[in-house]
Protein backbone atom coordinates (compact mmCIF):
# COMPACT_ATOMS: atom_id res chain seq x y z
CA UNK A 1 0.00 0.00 0.00
CA UNK A 2 2.85 2.33 0.94
CA UNK A 3 4.58 1.62 -2.37
CA UNK A 4 1.38 2.31 -4.26
CA UNK A 5 1.15 5.71 -2.57
CA UNK A 6 4.74 6.47 -3.58
CA UNK A 7 3.88 5.83 -7.23
CA UNK A 8 0.79 8.07 -6.91
CA UNK A 9 2.85 10.80 -5.23
CA UNK A 10 5.47 10.68 -7.97
CA UNK A 11 2.89 11.16 -10.70
CA UNK A 12 1.30 14.08 -8.88
CA UNK A 13 4.69 15.77 -8.37
CA UNK A 14 5.53 15.15 -12.03
CA UNK A 15 2.36 16.88 -13.20
CA UNK A 16 2.99 20.01 -11.18
CA UNK A 17 6.39 20.36 -12.82
CA UNK A 18 4.57 21.37 -16.00
CA UNK A 19 3.88 24.84 -14.63
CA UNK A 20 3.48 26.47 -18.01
CA UNK A 21 1.09 23.81 -19.21
CA UNK A 22 -1.01 24.32 -16.10
CA UNK A 23 -0.98 28.10 -16.62
CA UNK A 24 -1.94 27.72 -20.28
CA UNK A 25 -4.85 25.42 -19.44
CA UNK A 26 -6.05 27.88 -16.81
CA UNK A 27 -5.85 30.77 -19.33
CA UNK A 28 -7.79 28.64 -21.83
CA UNK A 29 -10.45 27.90 -19.20
CA UNK A 30 -10.88 31.54 -18.16
CA UNK A 31 -10.90 32.84 -21.75
CA UNK A 32 -13.47 30.20 -22.70
CA UNK A 33 -15.75 31.48 -19.92
CA UNK A 34 -15.10 35.21 -20.22
CA UNK A 35 -14.93 35.41 -24.00
CA UNK A 36 -16.40 32.42 -25.87
CA UNK A 37 -19.04 31.49 -23.25
CA UNK A 38 -20.24 35.05 -22.80
CA UNK A 39 -20.48 35.88 -26.52
CA UNK A 40 -21.77 32.48 -27.69
CA UNK A 41 -24.57 32.62 -25.10
CA UNK A 42 -25.85 35.70 -26.97
CA UNK A 43 -25.84 33.79 -30.25
CA UNK A 44 -27.58 30.67 -28.99
CA UNK A 45 -31.11 30.07 -27.79
CA UNK A 46 -32.26 26.79 -26.24
CA UNK A 47 -35.64 26.79 -24.53
CA UNK A 48 -35.40 26.48 -20.76
CA UNK A 49 -31.61 26.69 -20.65
CA UNK A 50 -29.31 29.56 -19.69
CA UNK A 51 -26.59 28.69 -22.23
CA UNK A 52 -23.83 30.56 -20.40
CA UNK A 53 -24.24 28.48 -17.23
CA UNK A 54 -24.77 25.37 -19.33
CA UNK A 55 -21.52 25.95 -21.24
CA UNK A 56 -19.44 26.79 -18.14
CA UNK A 57 -20.45 23.47 -16.52
CA UNK A 58 -19.53 21.56 -19.69
CA UNK A 59 -16.20 23.34 -19.84
CA UNK A 60 -15.17 21.99 -16.42
CA UNK A 61 -15.62 18.41 -17.63
CA UNK A 62 -13.78 19.13 -20.91
CA UNK A 63 -10.83 20.48 -18.87
CA UNK A 64 -10.89 17.46 -16.56
CA UNK A 65 -10.82 15.16 -19.59
CA UNK A 66 -7.83 16.90 -21.21
CA UNK A 67 -5.87 16.97 -17.92
CA UNK A 68 -6.51 13.25 -17.30
CA UNK A 69 -5.38 12.30 -20.80
CA UNK A 70 -1.97 13.85 -20.13
CA UNK A 71 -0.64 10.76 -18.29
CA UNK A 72 -0.22 9.04 -21.69
CA UNK A 73 2.19 11.77 -22.83
CA UNK A 74 4.18 11.29 -19.63
CA UNK A 75 4.58 7.60 -20.44
CA UNK A 76 6.11 8.48 -23.85
CA UNK A 77 8.37 11.05 -22.26
CA UNK A 78 9.64 8.36 -19.87
CA UNK A 79 10.09 5.81 -22.65
CA UNK A 80 12.03 8.34 -24.74
CA UNK A 81 14.37 9.26 -21.89
CA UNK A 82 14.89 5.71 -20.64
CA UNK A 83 13.10 6.35 -17.34
CA UNK A 84 10.97 3.28 -17.98
CA UNK A 85 13.85 0.97 -17.20
CA UNK A 86 14.49 2.88 -13.98
CA UNK A 87 10.84 2.47 -12.96
CA UNK A 88 11.04 -1.28 -13.65
CA UNK A 89 14.10 -1.56 -11.41
CA UNK A 90 12.27 -0.09 -8.39
CA UNK A 91 11.22 -2.41 -5.53
CA UNK A 92 7.57 -2.00 -6.53
CA UNK A 93 5.52 -4.79 -8.09
CA UNK A 94 4.31 -4.31 -11.67
CA UNK A 95 0.71 -4.27 -10.50
CA UNK A 96 1.40 -1.59 -7.88
CA UNK A 97 3.23 0.47 -10.48
CA UNK A 98 0.38 0.24 -12.97
CA UNK A 99 -2.40 0.83 -10.48
CA UNK A 100 -0.46 3.72 -8.93
CA UNK A 101 -0.07 5.38 -12.30
CA UNK A 102 -3.74 5.09 -13.08
CA UNK A 103 -4.75 6.49 -9.69
CA UNK A 104 -2.05 9.18 -9.85
CA UNK A 105 -3.16 10.23 -13.34
CA UNK A 106 -6.77 10.60 -12.23
CA UNK A 107 -5.99 12.22 -8.89
CA UNK A 108 -3.62 14.86 -10.24
CA UNK A 109 -6.09 15.94 -12.91
CA UNK A 110 -8.75 16.20 -10.24
CA UNK A 111 -6.47 18.30 -7.99
CA UNK A 112 -5.71 20.55 -10.96
CA UNK A 113 -9.33 20.96 -12.03
CA UNK A 114 -10.56 21.48 -8.42
CA UNK A 115 -9.98 25.28 -8.34
CA UNK A 116 -11.39 25.59 -11.87
CA UNK A 117 -14.53 23.70 -10.79
CA UNK A 118 -14.81 26.06 -7.80
CA UNK A 119 -14.55 29.02 -10.20
CA UNK A 120 -17.19 27.56 -12.49
CA UNK A 121 -19.53 26.96 -9.49
CA UNK A 122 -19.06 30.61 -8.52
CA UNK A 123 -19.96 31.68 -12.08
CA UNK A 124 -22.92 29.28 -12.22
CA UNK A 125 -24.14 30.54 -8.84
CA UNK A 126 -26.20 27.55 -7.73
CA UNK A 127 -25.70 24.14 -6.16
CA UNK A 128 -27.65 20.99 -5.39
CA UNK A 129 -25.58 19.80 -2.36
CA UNK A 130 -26.40 16.08 -2.39
CA UNK A 131 -26.38 15.94 -6.17
CA UNK A 132 -23.05 17.76 -6.23
CA UNK A 133 -21.42 15.20 -3.92
CA UNK A 134 -22.63 12.40 -6.19
CA UNK A 135 -21.41 14.35 -9.24
CA UNK A 136 -18.02 14.89 -7.60
CA UNK A 137 -17.70 11.16 -6.95
CA UNK A 138 -18.64 10.48 -10.58
CA UNK A 139 -16.03 13.00 -11.78
CA UNK A 140 -13.40 11.19 -9.66
CA UNK A 141 -14.23 7.91 -11.36
CA UNK A 142 -14.38 9.65 -14.74
CA UNK A 143 -10.88 11.10 -14.38
CA UNK A 144 -9.47 7.68 -13.30
CA UNK A 145 -11.23 6.10 -16.29
CA UNK A 146 -9.82 8.67 -18.73
CA UNK A 147 -6.31 8.17 -17.29
CA UNK A 148 -6.73 4.41 -17.67
CA UNK A 149 -7.89 4.93 -21.27
CA UNK A 150 -4.89 7.14 -22.01
CA UNK A 151 -2.48 4.57 -20.49
CA UNK A 152 -4.19 1.73 -22.41
CA UNK A 153 -3.88 3.54 -25.75
CA UNK A 154 -0.29 4.65 -25.04
CA UNK A 155 0.98 1.14 -24.25
CA UNK A 156 -0.96 -0.45 -27.11
CA UNK A 157 0.36 1.96 -29.75
CA UNK A 158 3.92 2.52 -28.44
CA UNK A 159 4.43 5.31 -30.99
CA UNK A 160 4.30 8.91 -29.78
CA UNK A 161 3.34 10.24 -33.24
CA UNK A 162 0.40 7.91 -33.58
CA UNK A 163 -0.62 8.47 -29.98
CA UNK A 164 -0.52 12.23 -30.53
CA UNK A 165 -2.82 12.06 -33.55
CA UNK A 166 -5.15 9.45 -32.08
CA UNK A 167 -5.64 11.45 -28.89
CA UNK A 168 -6.21 14.59 -30.97
CA UNK A 169 -8.86 12.88 -33.09
CA UNK A 170 -10.39 11.17 -30.07
CA UNK A 171 -10.51 14.47 -28.19
CA UNK A 172 -12.18 16.14 -31.20
CA UNK A 173 -14.79 13.41 -31.46
CA UNK A 174 -15.40 12.50 -27.83
CA UNK A 175 -15.95 16.11 -26.73
CA UNK A 176 -17.95 17.27 -29.76
CA UNK A 177 -20.10 14.15 -29.85
CA UNK A 178 -21.21 14.67 -26.25
CA UNK A 179 -23.43 17.03 -24.30
CA UNK A 180 -20.42 19.09 -23.15
CA UNK A 181 -21.40 21.97 -25.44
CA UNK A 182 -25.03 21.31 -26.36
CA UNK A 183 -28.11 19.43 -25.03
CA UNK A 184 -28.70 15.85 -26.19
CA UNK A 185 -32.06 16.71 -27.77
CA UNK A 186 -30.33 19.23 -30.07
CA UNK A 187 -27.58 16.77 -30.99
CA UNK A 188 -30.24 14.16 -31.84
CA UNK A 189 -32.21 16.67 -33.89
CA UNK A 190 -29.07 17.66 -35.79
CA UNK A 191 -28.09 14.10 -36.66
CA UNK A 192 -29.48 10.86 -35.16
CA UNK A 193 -26.07 9.19 -35.52
CA UNK A 194 -24.40 11.97 -33.53
CA UNK A 195 -27.19 11.68 -30.99
CA UNK A 196 -26.67 7.90 -30.70
CA UNK A 197 -22.96 8.30 -30.04
CA UNK A 198 -23.56 11.16 -27.59
CA UNK A 199 -26.06 9.04 -25.60
CA UNK A 200 -23.37 6.48 -24.72
CA UNK A 201 -20.44 8.86 -24.36
CA UNK A 202 -18.76 8.98 -20.90
CA UNK A 203 -18.27 12.75 -21.36
CA UNK A 204 -22.06 13.04 -21.67
CA UNK A 205 -22.55 11.05 -18.45
CA UNK A 206 -20.02 13.21 -16.58
CA UNK A 207 -21.36 16.56 -17.84
CA UNK A 208 -24.99 15.62 -17.25
CA UNK A 209 -24.20 14.63 -13.66
CA UNK A 210 -22.10 17.74 -13.06
CA UNK A 211 -24.85 20.03 -14.41
CA UNK A 212 -27.37 18.25 -12.24
CA UNK A 213 -25.13 18.62 -9.19
CA UNK A 214 -24.48 22.28 -9.96
CA UNK A 215 -28.20 22.92 -10.33
CA UNK A 216 -27.95 23.91 -13.99
CA UNK A 217 -30.25 21.24 -15.42
CA UNK A 218 -32.51 18.52 -14.07
CA UNK A 219 -31.92 14.82 -14.52
CA UNK A 220 -34.74 12.24 -14.65
CA UNK A 221 -32.62 9.39 -13.36
CA UNK A 222 -29.06 10.22 -12.14
CA UNK A 223 -28.40 6.51 -11.58
CA UNK A 224 -28.09 5.78 -15.31
CA UNK A 225 -25.21 8.19 -16.07
CA UNK A 226 -23.59 7.17 -12.77
CA UNK A 227 -23.68 3.52 -13.84
CA UNK A 228 -22.26 4.55 -17.23
CA UNK A 229 -19.32 6.26 -15.49
CA UNK A 230 -18.74 3.24 -13.21
CA UNK A 231 -18.71 0.95 -16.27
CA UNK A 232 -16.27 3.27 -18.11
CA UNK A 233 -14.00 3.49 -15.05
CA UNK A 234 -14.03 -0.27 -14.43
CA UNK A 235 -13.36 -1.14 -18.07
CA UNK A 236 -10.42 1.18 -18.61
CA UNK A 237 -8.83 0.84 -15.19
CA UNK A 238 -8.95 -2.95 -15.47
CA UNK A 239 -7.93 -3.12 -19.14
CA UNK A 240 -5.29 -0.41 -18.59
CA UNK A 241 -3.75 -2.34 -15.71
CA UNK A 242 -3.68 -5.65 -17.62
CA UNK A 243 -2.26 -4.14 -20.83
CA UNK A 244 0.31 -1.99 -19.05
CA UNK A 245 1.48 -5.04 -17.13
CA UNK A 246 1.82 -7.05 -20.35
CA UNK A 247 3.51 -4.36 -22.45
CA UNK A 248 5.67 -2.65 -19.85
CA UNK A 249 8.68 -4.83 -20.61
CA UNK A 250 10.40 -5.60 -23.88
CA UNK A 251 10.84 -2.06 -25.23
CA UNK A 252 9.59 -1.41 -28.75
CA UNK A 253 8.76 2.25 -28.07
CA UNK A 254 8.89 4.56 -31.11
Amino acid at each position, binding site marked *: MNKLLLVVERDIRLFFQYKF*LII*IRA*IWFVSQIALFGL*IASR*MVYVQGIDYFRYYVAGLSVMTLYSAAVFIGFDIYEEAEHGVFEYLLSLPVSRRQLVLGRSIGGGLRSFIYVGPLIALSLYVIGSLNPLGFLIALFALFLFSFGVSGMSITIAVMIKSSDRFD*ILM*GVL*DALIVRLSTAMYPLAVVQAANPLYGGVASFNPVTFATDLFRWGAGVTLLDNPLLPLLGIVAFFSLFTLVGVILYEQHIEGGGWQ
Partner: protein
Amino acid sequence: MKGILHILEHDFRSFFRYKWWLVGLISMNLADLFIMAIVYNYMISSEVKITSYFDFFAPGLAVTGLFASAFMIGREINMERRREVHHYMLSLPMTRLELAIGRVLSGGLRGMLYMSPLLLTCFIFLGFPTVWQLLLILAVLFLLATGISGLSIAIAVSTSSLEKFITARGLVYYTLFFCSSVFYPLSLIQQLGSEGKFPAPLVTLAEINPLSNASDMIRSFLMPDYTSFSLISIVNVFIFSVVFTLGAAFAYMKIIERT
Protein backbone atom coordinates in the same frame (compact mmCIF):
# COMPACT_ATOMS: atom_id res chain seq x y z
CA MET B 1 16.76 35.20 -54.07
CA LYS B 2 18.25 31.71 -54.41
CA GLY B 3 18.91 31.69 -50.68
CA ILE B 4 15.23 32.40 -49.98
CA LEU B 5 14.22 29.48 -52.22
CA HIS B 6 16.58 27.15 -50.31
CA ILE B 7 15.04 28.26 -47.00
CA LEU B 8 11.56 27.70 -48.42
CA GLU B 9 12.53 24.19 -49.49
CA HIS B 10 14.09 23.46 -46.07
CA ASP B 11 11.03 24.66 -44.19
CA PHE B 12 8.56 22.84 -46.42
CA ARG B 13 10.48 19.60 -45.91
CA SER B 14 10.32 20.17 -42.13
CA PHE B 15 6.58 20.88 -42.40
CA PHE B 16 5.88 17.49 -43.95
CA ARG B 17 7.77 15.77 -41.15
CA TYR B 18 4.82 16.77 -38.92
CA LYS B 19 2.39 14.76 -41.03
CA TRP B 20 0.76 13.10 -38.02
CA TRP B 21 0.32 16.41 -36.30
CA LEU B 22 -1.21 17.85 -39.49
CA VAL B 23 -3.63 14.95 -39.86
CA GLY B 24 -4.68 15.44 -36.20
CA LEU B 25 -5.15 19.17 -36.70
CA ILE B 26 -7.19 18.77 -39.87
CA SER B 27 -9.43 16.14 -38.25
CA MET B 28 -10.09 18.51 -35.36
CA ASN B 29 -10.92 21.29 -37.82
CA LEU B 30 -13.28 19.04 -39.76
CA ALA B 31 -14.91 17.80 -36.53
CA ASP B 32 -15.54 21.44 -35.63
CA LEU B 33 -17.23 22.01 -38.96
CA PHE B 34 -19.12 18.76 -39.47
CA ILE B 35 -20.17 18.15 -35.88
CA MET B 36 -20.07 21.33 -33.80
CA ALA B 37 -21.24 23.73 -36.52
CA ILE B 38 -24.04 21.39 -37.63
CA VAL B 39 -25.33 21.05 -34.06
CA TYR B 40 -25.05 24.82 -33.45
CA ASN B 41 -27.25 25.29 -36.55
CA TYR B 42 -30.12 24.04 -34.40
CA MET B 43 -29.44 26.47 -31.55
CA ILE B 44 -28.91 29.78 -33.36
CA SER B 45 -31.11 32.49 -31.89
CA SER B 46 -33.59 34.08 -34.30
CA GLU B 47 -32.32 37.50 -33.16
CA VAL B 48 -28.90 36.84 -34.72
CA LYS B 49 -28.47 37.66 -38.40
CA ILE B 50 -27.26 34.15 -39.30
CA THR B 51 -29.42 31.66 -41.18
CA SER B 52 -26.91 28.81 -41.08
CA TYR B 53 -24.12 28.57 -38.52
CA PHE B 54 -22.38 26.00 -40.72
CA ASP B 55 -22.14 28.55 -43.55
CA PHE B 56 -21.10 31.27 -41.13
CA PHE B 57 -18.39 29.17 -39.50
CA ALA B 58 -16.83 27.62 -42.65
CA PRO B 59 -14.86 30.79 -43.66
CA GLY B 60 -13.84 31.31 -40.02
CA LEU B 61 -12.56 27.75 -39.87
CA ALA B 62 -10.35 28.27 -42.95
CA VAL B 63 -8.87 31.32 -41.23
CA THR B 64 -8.27 29.47 -37.92
CA GLY B 65 -6.57 26.63 -39.84
CA LEU B 66 -4.36 29.18 -41.59
CA PHE B 67 -3.50 30.76 -38.25
CA ALA B 68 -2.56 27.49 -36.51
CA SER B 69 -0.41 26.19 -39.37
CA ALA B 70 1.34 29.52 -40.10
CA PHE B 71 2.15 29.75 -36.38
CA MET B 72 4.03 26.42 -36.47
CA ILE B 73 7.19 28.06 -37.86
CA GLY B 74 7.63 29.82 -34.50
CA ARG B 75 7.83 26.52 -32.65
CA GLU B 76 10.52 25.27 -35.02
CA ILE B 77 12.56 28.45 -34.71
CA ASN B 78 12.25 28.37 -30.93
CA MET B 79 13.48 24.76 -30.97
CA GLU B 80 16.40 25.68 -33.28
CA ARG B 81 17.37 28.43 -30.88
CA ARG B 82 17.26 26.11 -27.86
CA ARG B 83 19.24 23.37 -29.62
CA GLU B 84 21.59 25.97 -31.09
CA VAL B 85 20.82 24.94 -34.69
CA HIS B 86 20.67 28.65 -35.49
CA HIS B 87 24.49 28.72 -35.52
CA TYR B 88 24.34 26.34 -38.47
CA MET B 89 21.66 28.48 -40.14
CA LEU B 90 23.85 31.57 -39.71
CA SER B 91 26.80 29.75 -41.31
CA LEU B 92 24.88 29.15 -44.56
CA PRO B 93 26.08 31.06 -47.63
CA MET B 94 23.25 33.60 -47.72
CA THR B 95 22.61 37.03 -46.31
CA ARG B 96 20.90 37.49 -42.96
CA LEU B 97 18.05 39.27 -44.72
CA GLU B 98 17.51 36.35 -47.13
CA LEU B 99 17.47 33.97 -44.17
CA ALA B 100 14.97 36.07 -42.22
CA ILE B 101 12.66 36.79 -45.18
CA GLY B 102 12.83 33.11 -46.18
CA ARG B 103 11.68 32.00 -42.73
CA VAL B 104 8.77 34.47 -42.61
CA LEU B 105 7.68 33.61 -46.16
CA SER B 106 7.88 29.87 -45.65
CA GLY B 107 5.74 30.12 -42.50
CA GLY B 108 3.12 32.01 -44.50
CA LEU B 109 3.22 29.67 -47.50
CA ARG B 110 2.92 26.62 -45.28
CA GLY B 111 -0.16 28.19 -43.73
CA MET B 112 -1.62 28.74 -47.21
CA LEU B 113 -0.95 25.14 -48.16
CA TYR B 114 -2.61 23.76 -45.03
CA MET B 115 -5.57 26.11 -45.36
CA SER B 116 -6.29 25.22 -49.04
CA PRO B 117 -8.46 22.10 -48.39
CA LEU B 118 -10.40 23.98 -45.70
CA LEU B 119 -11.02 26.90 -48.07
CA LEU B 120 -12.03 24.49 -50.83
CA THR B 121 -14.49 22.79 -48.43
CA CYS B 122 -15.88 26.24 -47.67
CA PHE B 123 -16.34 26.97 -51.40
CA ILE B 124 -17.95 23.59 -52.04
CA PHE B 125 -20.64 24.24 -49.42
CA LEU B 126 -21.10 27.99 -49.81
CA GLY B 127 -20.46 28.39 -53.54
CA PHE B 128 -17.44 29.53 -55.52
CA PRO B 129 -16.47 33.21 -55.72
CA THR B 130 -15.67 34.96 -59.02
CA VAL B 131 -12.08 34.82 -60.28
CA TRP B 132 -11.33 38.35 -59.05
CA GLN B 133 -12.86 37.63 -55.67
CA LEU B 134 -10.84 34.41 -55.44
CA LEU B 135 -7.62 36.26 -56.26
CA LEU B 136 -8.41 38.89 -53.66
CA ILE B 137 -9.21 36.21 -51.03
CA LEU B 138 -5.93 34.42 -51.74
CA ALA B 139 -3.94 37.67 -51.66
CA VAL B 140 -5.47 38.77 -48.34
CA LEU B 141 -5.02 35.30 -46.80
CA PHE B 142 -1.39 35.26 -47.94
CA LEU B 143 -0.81 38.65 -46.30
CA LEU B 144 -2.50 37.33 -43.15
CA ALA B 145 -0.41 34.14 -43.20
CA THR B 146 2.90 36.01 -43.51
CA GLY B 147 1.81 38.38 -40.73
CA ILE B 148 0.97 35.43 -38.46
CA SER B 149 4.24 33.72 -39.37
CA GLY B 150 6.06 36.97 -38.49
CA LEU B 151 4.19 37.23 -35.20
CA SER B 152 5.12 33.66 -34.23
CA ILE B 153 8.77 34.19 -35.20
CA ALA B 154 8.90 37.40 -33.14
CA ILE B 155 7.55 35.47 -30.12
CA ALA B 156 9.87 32.50 -30.79
CA VAL B 157 13.06 34.55 -30.84
CA SER B 158 12.02 36.61 -27.81
CA THR B 159 11.33 33.59 -25.57
CA SER B 160 14.17 31.50 -24.18
CA SER B 161 12.30 28.25 -23.44
CA LEU B 162 9.63 26.13 -25.09
CA GLU B 163 7.34 26.58 -22.07
CA LYS B 164 7.49 30.37 -22.31
CA PHE B 165 6.89 30.16 -26.05
CA ILE B 166 3.87 27.87 -25.55
CA THR B 167 2.44 30.16 -22.86
CA ALA B 168 2.87 33.27 -25.04
CA ARG B 169 1.41 31.39 -28.01
CA GLY B 170 -1.60 30.34 -25.93
CA LEU B 171 -2.26 33.92 -24.85
CA VAL B 172 -2.06 35.16 -28.45
CA TYR B 173 -4.18 32.27 -29.76
CA TYR B 174 -7.02 32.67 -27.28
CA THR B 175 -7.11 36.46 -27.45
CA LEU B 176 -7.09 36.60 -31.24
CA PHE B 177 -9.47 33.64 -31.71
CA PHE B 178 -12.09 34.56 -29.15
CA CYS B 179 -11.96 38.35 -29.71
CA SER B 180 -12.78 37.96 -33.38
CA SER B 181 -15.69 37.21 -35.69
CA VAL B 182 -14.37 33.70 -36.41
CA PHE B 183 -16.94 31.99 -34.16
CA TYR B 184 -19.66 34.63 -33.80
CA PRO B 185 -20.76 37.84 -35.55
CA LEU B 186 -18.84 41.00 -34.70
CA SER B 187 -22.14 42.74 -33.96
CA LEU B 188 -22.60 40.52 -30.86
CA ILE B 189 -19.25 41.64 -29.42
CA GLN B 190 -20.09 45.28 -30.20
CA GLN B 191 -23.52 44.85 -28.59
CA LEU B 192 -21.97 43.41 -25.41
CA GLY B 193 -19.47 46.30 -25.44
CA SER B 194 -22.21 48.92 -25.70
CA GLU B 195 -24.03 47.28 -22.77
CA GLY B 196 -20.84 47.53 -20.71
CA LYS B 197 -20.52 43.73 -20.42
CA PHE B 198 -17.38 43.48 -22.53
CA PRO B 199 -14.27 45.68 -22.11
CA ALA B 200 -13.98 48.42 -24.77
CA PRO B 201 -10.32 47.59 -25.64
CA LEU B 202 -11.35 44.00 -26.46
CA VAL B 203 -14.20 45.27 -28.66
CA THR B 204 -11.70 47.46 -30.55
CA LEU B 205 -9.33 44.49 -30.80
CA ALA B 206 -12.14 42.39 -32.29
CA GLU B 207 -12.85 45.12 -34.86
CA ILE B 208 -9.26 45.49 -36.04
CA ASN B 209 -8.35 41.83 -35.54
CA PRO B 210 -7.00 40.50 -38.87
CA LEU B 211 -8.80 37.19 -38.24
CA SER B 212 -12.14 39.08 -38.10
CA ASN B 213 -11.25 41.07 -41.20
CA ALA B 214 -10.21 38.06 -43.26
CA SER B 215 -13.23 35.94 -42.19
CA ASP B 216 -15.68 38.75 -42.88
CA MET B 217 -14.11 39.48 -46.25
CA ILE B 218 -14.66 35.87 -47.36
CA ARG B 219 -18.22 36.04 -45.97
CA SER B 220 -18.90 39.26 -47.87
CA PHE B 221 -18.24 37.38 -51.14
CA LEU B 222 -19.90 34.08 -50.27
CA MET B 223 -22.70 35.33 -47.98
CA PRO B 224 -23.59 38.79 -49.34
CA ASP B 225 -26.77 38.90 -47.21
CA TYR B 226 -24.72 38.66 -44.03
CA THR B 227 -22.16 41.42 -44.56
CA SER B 228 -20.88 43.74 -47.28
CA PHE B 229 -17.32 44.06 -48.55
CA SER B 230 -15.19 46.63 -46.74
CA LEU B 231 -11.90 48.03 -48.02
CA ILE B 232 -10.86 48.88 -44.47
CA SER B 233 -10.64 45.17 -43.63
CA ILE B 234 -8.01 44.71 -46.35
CA VAL B 235 -6.09 47.75 -45.10
CA ASN B 236 -6.12 46.29 -41.56
CA VAL B 237 -4.74 42.94 -42.76
CA PHE B 238 -2.13 44.75 -44.88
CA ILE B 239 -0.92 46.83 -41.92
CA PHE B 240 -0.81 43.74 -39.68
CA SER B 241 1.19 41.87 -42.29
CA VAL B 242 3.71 44.66 -42.97
CA VAL B 243 4.29 45.36 -39.27
CA PHE B 244 4.86 41.74 -38.28
CA THR B 245 6.76 40.65 -41.39
CA LEU B 246 9.27 43.49 -41.07
CA GLY B 247 9.31 43.35 -37.26
CA ALA B 248 9.94 39.59 -37.26
CA ALA B 249 12.63 39.78 -39.96
CA PHE B 250 14.43 42.48 -37.99
CA ALA B 251 14.06 40.64 -34.64
CA TYR B 252 15.19 37.34 -36.20
CA MET B 253 18.32 38.92 -37.70
CA LYS B 254 19.26 40.72 -34.50
CA ILE B 255 18.36 38.18 -31.82
CA ILE B 256 19.74 34.99 -33.35
CA GLU B 257 23.13 36.65 -33.83
CA ARG B 258 23.18 37.71 -30.20
CA THR B 259 22.53 34.26 -28.67
